């Protein structure tokens, strides 16, 4: 609250001190960052750079990506700040991103930076696949909490698991691509065949399985850590479990849209987005951030999440996404007959 007051005060001050006339640049920034964080990000950045004003356009990852692609021939955004790296990779293959090397990018963990030089996108933080397990409903049904991905295929969980549909949710795809990268095609598909028998529903959003587990609509939600921590703070009787085999993950990242009229301001924003200060800001919600040594433990989450993350190959995932989804839909969508 105090911090918020400070921002308000800062805002008021800059309003009554018109002596320094800034040539204010407006940046249209597309984002999929959680709504609760938007004002904080904007205020913190604008405090550091009062001559640039951020106009957010926010939506979920899927809609934002579709919107950006649909606007390909006449981009409306200057910068994308906080969108899945996989989505940015897709934009890059369409030639939509302006490659730019931010000033202090060398300080970031390498796996959070585009492999090309200069990089087209730079990472902010990561979200990591995790299970949300409802302890109350689990006890009612006499179940034990799973500790690994493999546990999920046990027959006693039949009908109690929800997971995001990889064909409509980025989180769902990071799960599938994570399994395939960990185990190889054959083992991953045979795992999913068995898992499918236990799934009660595939959702369209990645955070929803966790919220469903939190509300007792399901016992186990295959999701990621952020909504788990949030639901737990809200009072959901859940445990957040990181499977022992390791977890797929996705980076949230920043990029400049090619052809922006405000390139200098866009570069300023991207420069700032990789600073220590910015990463401390991301850390308020995300347990893993791109700047090494910054992350502090987030409430309800273990401190060693970074060690659960598998070696994710974004390029492999992007190149094989079409084929994987086609096979997935062939195996599981056609089978999803009405249960009643």
């Amino acid at each position: 609250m105090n911090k918020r007051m400070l921002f308000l005060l800062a805002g008021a001050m800059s309003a009554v001190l018109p002596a320094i006339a800034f040539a204010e640049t407006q940046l249209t920034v597309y984002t999929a960052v959680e709504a609760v964080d938007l004002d904080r990000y904007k205020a913190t950045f604008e405090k550091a750079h009062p001559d640039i004003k951020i106009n957010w356009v926010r939506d979920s990852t899927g809609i934002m990506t579709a919107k950006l692609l649909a606007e390909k021939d006449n981009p409306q955004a200057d910068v994308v700040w906080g969108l899945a790296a996989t989505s940015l990779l897709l934009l890059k293959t369409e030639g939509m991103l302006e490659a730019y090397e931010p000033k202090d990018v060398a300080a970031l963990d390498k796996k959070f930076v585009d492999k090309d030089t200069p990089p087209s996108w730079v990472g902010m933080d990561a979200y990591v696949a995790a299970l949300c397990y409802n302890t109350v409903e689990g006890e009612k049904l006499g179940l034990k909490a799973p500790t690994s991905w493999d546990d999920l295929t046990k027959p006693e969980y039949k009908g109690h698991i929800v997971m995001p549909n990889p064909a409509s949710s980025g989180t769902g795809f990071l799960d599938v691509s994570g399994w395939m990268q960990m185990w190889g095609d054959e083992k991953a598909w045979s795992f999913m065949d068995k898992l499918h028998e236990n799934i009660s529903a595939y959702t369209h959003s990645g955070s929803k399985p966790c919220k469903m587990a939190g509300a007792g609509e399901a016992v186990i939600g295959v999701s990621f850590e952020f909504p788990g921590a949030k639901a737990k703070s809200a009072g959901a009787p859940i445990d957040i479990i990181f499977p022992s085999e390791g977890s797929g993950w996705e980076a949230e990242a920043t990029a400049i849209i090619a052809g922006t009229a405000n390139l200098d301001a866009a570069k300023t924003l991207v420069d700032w987005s990789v600073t220590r200060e910015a990463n401390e800001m991301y850390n308020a919600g995300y347990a893993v951030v791109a700047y090494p040594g910054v992350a502090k433990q987030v409430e309800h989450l273990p401190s060693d999440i970074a060690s659960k993350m598998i070696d994710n190959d974004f390029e492999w995932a992007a190149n094989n996404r079409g084929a994987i989804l086609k096979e997935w839909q062939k195996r599981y969508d056609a089978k999803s007959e009405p249960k009643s």
Partner: protein
Amino acid sequence: MNIDLEAPYLPLVGKRLRQESSRDDRIKLGLMAVIGLYLVVALGAPLFIMLSKSLSTYRFDLAAFEFQVSDETGTNWGPVVAADALNQKLGVVTDEELVSSSDGRLAATKFFPDFSFRSPVHYRIRGTTADAAFLAGPTLEKGTEWRDYDSGTFRRVVLRPASSLGLENFKTYFSTPALARSIYNSVLMAAISTVVTISVAFALAYGLTRSCMPLKGLFRGILTIPILVPSLLPGIALVYLFGNQGVFKDWLMGYSIYGPIGIVIGSVFFTLPHAFLIILTALSIADARHYEAATSLKASKWRTFTTVTVPGARFGIVSAAFVVFTLVITDFGLPKVIGGQYSMLAVDIYKQVIGQQNFEMGAVVSVILLVPAILAFAVDRRMQKRQVALLSARAVPYAPKPNAGMDRICFGFACLVSLFILGMIAMCQIAALVKFWPYDLTLTTKNFAFDLMDGGGWAAYGNSIKLALLTALFGSLVVFAGAYMVEKTDGFRFGRSLFHFLAMMPMAVPGMVLGLAYIFFFNNPANPLNSIYGTMAILVICTVTHFYTVAHLTALTALKQMDPEFESVASSLKQPFHRLFFRVTVPVCLPAILNIAIYLFVNAMTTVSAVVFLYSTDTKLASVAVLNMDDAGDIAPAAAMGMMIFYTNVAAKLVHALIARGLLARTQAWR
């Protein structure tokens, strides 16, 4: 020349005498052209772009790529070979695999069976056309220049497909069982929901117009409640009522609410008011003389019902059935929340476009969704030809007589349906006020702190009200004028049919398709209307267009019930059409016009799918916030925002009722 001059004096055999005042006709045609142009720009053109999207296919054009391989020194190059020549020799890629999507990738190493990424061999690749595109890693390369890669990098080279026109997308669609199955599911769900909704709506409308049951005004109010909430809300309510933690879970006897059961119950809930209002309009203007005739002919109750009541409302019933069917088949909010694994066409569009960014396949599904609309249109036209005006200038209004038994049945049924509707709304209200369902049932207002969640907060709520007001004002003007031109103009048959066709289309166009079509059409720098992209104006145009059909049908139903003799009398009295229009037509149809305005208002408040692609920073909307919050799993705040929309619409309805009462007292005294 002579013939032309003499022509007016020749008797026109077998043709109706044209009324005079050709100036009127010209004005009417001019107005029709303006509104027609609006529909073409706001609907026809974007849909055309969408259609062309569904036909734009992607295919790997192997003839467009050439390779060169070096020896182990990496400097001496072998002969230039085209990819299709290599494929003919090796047969590594089948013809089927060449068909792709906009995001298709084909690894270049496929053509080199003895490829090893550790070898010192270098590879060169180039396009033979300027458009041939490939990726080296994630970097897009284009053009006819040779590019040189070591084998480690060449491993990461993938070819991109070239776009062309064709029917491959449709072939792919129908050969994918998971996708094609949705057609059957969607039609089945829509058909069941239509039968149930129309039966219930007809029974209710009949009770309200033909019996003397008490509390008619109250029921009329309650029955229109579902129209005041986004279609996601019944889904949310059903989760709370019958979900795994639901209050009445046991009522389903082990069946899951997620799936067909939930879709049908929810669809009946949200389509009921649409059907009810149309059938009510059709039933409410009855000529008492028909009933008197039936009584004096000693016709039984049942016979009167089947020969007077039903035929009189036939047009309304068919229209209502068409409306309900297409509403269900095109809605994506409800099946998304409650549909479970039961795949539906509209959700498929969502999966294709949002989940996989496959616009082409989304367009294919949209085109398939247009088929029922075109069929419904054909049926509707045939029915309409047989429709005769019920309210002639000599009609006597019908007043029902009390009948204790009948009245009690009607009353009981209305109570039952009302209980169902109120129960759903009450459940949402409770959910919105509870801290953490089902584990912490203390009351809280924290779910109303929208600024802390996805969606745009309270500013979005303000934007929604602005959008709703603008849509109601602009929309009722355009729609009623358009309907009048279609119904009451002579001649120019082809133009009128085309206009009517365009007016019927929006019903069948899923909002999501319309929204996407708008992006493709308006966000094109070559389009002179490009500047409205990202403004409130495009949201208004999109919303008016999206809800054009029902408003148009309401206006048509009202206009149809006016005898064409009014026009004949006016022109024989040498009155210009605008005087007739403003002095007779508008006052007589005022209830319908007000209904159109409020219909547009509440739908602008609740619409989600059409505007979800079109809002910008300054124009976020409350209804989209409901979707986003539910999507993120924040169901309670979603219910809370849904209830805010509901209360706003209730307030709008009350204002509407007040205005209506004041105006109708002046204009409808004759009824």
